[in-house]
């Protein structure tokens, strides 16, 4: 099987010839030209390419994206200006230094922006990009995040978010409502577009919300929107890269087909055996812990096979990936994983 056929079998819940293994394009891209990758593609490694089949178009919003230097450090400031005010965020080395949402007024401006954001299809652009990808690439359309996760991850950051939940509850709800309307449009557009598997890049970790908020804010959105994608013949995977145990019962009920970026302890808090017992029918696209890549080859191989035994006793519904930290020793360790996976051939 090619990696695309293998992934297709994985998505179908069928048994591929061996357990698939992929890496995120944004993790891999920094070293894409390194010839050390070539034998790994031949050995079955795939690269997942997240592409948008929709586009957000802003009305009455001016964007100013400004690089600058602060204390000798290169910084980026992104300002969004509207008739009701402006908001800005800053980054250093790609990390948020200041988030868009800090005051109640910021919420009102961002709500205006979201209410003035149209969702338009970008199917041709998606198909054109997908057609240009190499054979080891897997194109995946994405729907970005659900409303609360956008507020938490993209706009407020966890610390502001915790505070705003109580301090700016009304403003937060108004923004949430605007984002939900927008998310519904994204789902409608993506449902009619290309791609069999759709990624919800949720960036969820249970500690940041807890089961009650999951039940209130995430689950209803999944229950309303994901069946629209299902009706269009698509599968949905949610990027749950953190802890999941405290929301296990809620996740069981969520119409999520695939838990993507599932990571066992120590980064996550459920072993694959626990996750499989809780979610027997969900597909898992799972990370090996980055610490695992540091193991001697024999131990790394044993870890890979142990994880397969836990997560996929029958060789179905399971794949490995690198979606989080990029193993610094990838030249040495990732070929070991690929060799180990040959032993999963049925």
């Amino acid at each position, binding site marked *: 099987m090619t990696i695309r056929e293998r992934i297709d079998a994985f998505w179908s819940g069928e048994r591929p010839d061996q357990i698939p293994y992929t890496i995120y394009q944004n993790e891999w891209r920094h070293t894409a030209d390194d010839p050390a990758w070539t034998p790994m593609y031949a050995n079955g490694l795939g690269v997942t390419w997240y592409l948008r089949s929709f586009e957000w178009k802003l009305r009455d919003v001016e964007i100013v994206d400004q690089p600058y230097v602060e204390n000798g450090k290169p910084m980026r400031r992104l300002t969004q200006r509207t008739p009701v005010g402006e908001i800005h965020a800053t980054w250093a080395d790609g990390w948020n230094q200041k988030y868009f949402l800090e005051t109640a007024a910021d919420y009102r401006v961002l709500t205006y922006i979201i209410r003035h954001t149209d969702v338009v299809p970008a199917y041709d652009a998606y198909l054109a990009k997908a057609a240009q990808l190499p054979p080891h690439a897997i194109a995946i359309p994405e729907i970005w995040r659900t409303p609360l996760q956008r507020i938490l991850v993209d706009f407020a950051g*966890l610390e502001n*978010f*915790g*505070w705003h*939940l109580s301090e700016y509850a009304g403003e937060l709800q108004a923004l949430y409502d605007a984002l939900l309307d927008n998310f519904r449009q994204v789902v409608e557009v993506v449902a009619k577009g290309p791609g069999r598997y759709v990624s919800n890049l949720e960036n969820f970790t*249970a*500690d940041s919300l*807890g089961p009650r908020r999951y039940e209130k804010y995430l689950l209803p959105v999944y229950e309303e929107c994901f069946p629209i994608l299902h009706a269009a013949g698509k599968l949905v995977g949610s990027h749950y890269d953190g802890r999941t145990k*405290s929301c296990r019962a809620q996740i069981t009920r969520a119409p999520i087909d695939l838990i993507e970026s599932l990571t066992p302890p120590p980064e996550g808090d459920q072993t694959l055996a626990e996750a499989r017992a809780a979610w027997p029918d969900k597909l898992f696209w799972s990370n090996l812990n980055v610490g695992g890549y540091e193991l001697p080859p024999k131990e790394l191989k044993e870890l890979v096979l142990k994880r397969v035994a836990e997560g996929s006793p029958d060789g179905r519904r399971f794949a490995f990936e690198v979606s989080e930290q990029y193993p*610094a020793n990838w030249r040495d360790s990732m070929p070991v994983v690929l060799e180990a996976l040959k032993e999963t051939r049925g």
Partner: protein
Amino acid sequence: MDPIIREIYDAILAGNSKAVEAKVPVALAAGLAPKQILEEGMIAAMAEVGRLFEEGEYFVPEMLIAARAMQAGLALLKPRLKEGNVQSAGRVAIGSVLGDLHDIGKNLVAMMLEGAGFEVLDLGTNVTPAKFVATVTEKDVRIIALSALLTTTMASMKTTIDALAQAGVRGKIKIMVGGAPITEVFARQIGADGYAPDASRAVALAKSLVAA
């Protein structure tokens, strides 16, 4: 428990900063000792927050707003604590190690330690071993708390501990480590004195380290 202190305790548990700010002056005006307000109203409430977090009743947002409420009350109480010469549980210097720009976990631990009565020196993120050494040398610190979220930056924890040893100050302090990829085994391997898997258990660890 005194009824006013109970109100402060409950307000912290609920993360109600405004109520804490309103009640602390009432408690002081009623003649309650600052030390009693701190220990029975605030530290006890934050200990309960930690317990509820460990039990899976509270999550990060609840912990954050409780810590903010505690800080609001502590700001009002601090001058009176100084006047009364009330000692902190110990001085802790905390930072994300060199190369690591993550700060949420570190900030949570700092807040919870402060909530437990420790004096916390937050050195920020991407902290060099030299800065940790200088802090120990200059600030009479009892505990160094090192945070790392990335396996690629975990090695900086060992570098920091080695630098403290080379500077001859390792014996003066206890070192605790934490962060998503850190384990008890790793903590032992690099010569740390303890490891905590979350902010709540970091408080218990810090208490045990200062008591040792």
